[in-house]
């Protein structure tokens, strides 16, 4: 992935995050991000069209209730924010994916998107994602976040 594409994806993610959750992302080299001690949430979304591939989003657990609370207009401690943290995280990926594909491929391109798959990754999973050559890193409200756009060969 070129530097221009990396910057484009980073800009799209930060814009979606700000408009959807009123949170601010600071693009950061993936190597500079700490590995979340308590593990991380990961959502993956496959797409098919003129190019096929996947978009992966991973973030420290601690970010997700804050994200859900901001999206829903709740306090992070409220039960609904905790219950919906995974769903809100998946929706952030879903919206980001739609905008990233338009930014990369243009408005004429047509893609079919699969539903996001949610899971957990441990330290090794985080390291593997962080070290992928096409991973982009962010610090969001103090929490480490990784985003990876991968095109199939």
């Amino acid at each position, binding site marked *: 992935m070129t530097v221009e594409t990396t910057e484009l994806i980073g800009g799209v993610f930060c814009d979606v995050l700000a408009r959807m959750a009123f949170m601010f992302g600071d693009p950061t080299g993936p190597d500079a991000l700490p590995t979340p001690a308590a593990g991380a949430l990961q959502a993956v979304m496959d797409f098919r069209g003129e190019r096929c591939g996947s978009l992966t989003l991973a973030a420290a657990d601690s970010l997700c209730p804050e994200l859900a609370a901001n999206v829903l207009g709740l306090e992070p401690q409220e039960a609904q924010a905790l219950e919906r943290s995974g769903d809100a995280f998946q929706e952030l990926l*879903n919206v980001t994916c739609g905008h990233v594909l338009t930014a990369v491929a243009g408005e*004429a391109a047509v893609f079919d*998107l699969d539903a996001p798959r949610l899971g957990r990754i441990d330290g090794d999973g985080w390291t593997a994602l962080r070290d992928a050559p096409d991973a982009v890193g962010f610090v969001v409200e103090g929490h480490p976040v990784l985003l990876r756009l991968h095109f199939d060969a």
Partner: protein
Amino acid sequence: MALNILLVDDSTTVRAVIARSLELAGVPVGNLHQAANGREALAILGREWIDLVFADINMPVMNGVEMIEKMREDGLLQTIPVVICSTEGSVSRIEQLRAAGVRAYIRKPFTPELLRQVVEDTVGVPHDG
């Protein structure tokens, strides 16, 4: 007059966000119904009076396009305005949706103000008080 609205999205978060945005935008809502996919939505449409539908495209079981096609086969349901609320950015797909009878398209993320404008443009609105 309050509107009976049906929200169709597999994400409970999105349904909650639309519901809250309608409230923040001052759109008078009567009964707010929710469905996680097109099939659930058709079941609700078959038994409830609905004035306006907000639907996603990508959903499991039955997606938004399939749901709209089913609505167009029904003399009564085809009169209910559908607004698509999705991440879709493809111009040709949005044109296809409009050709299929979709009244408006909102790209996520959206603001309460945009939601209100779309409601006004689609069904004319109803102001509280």
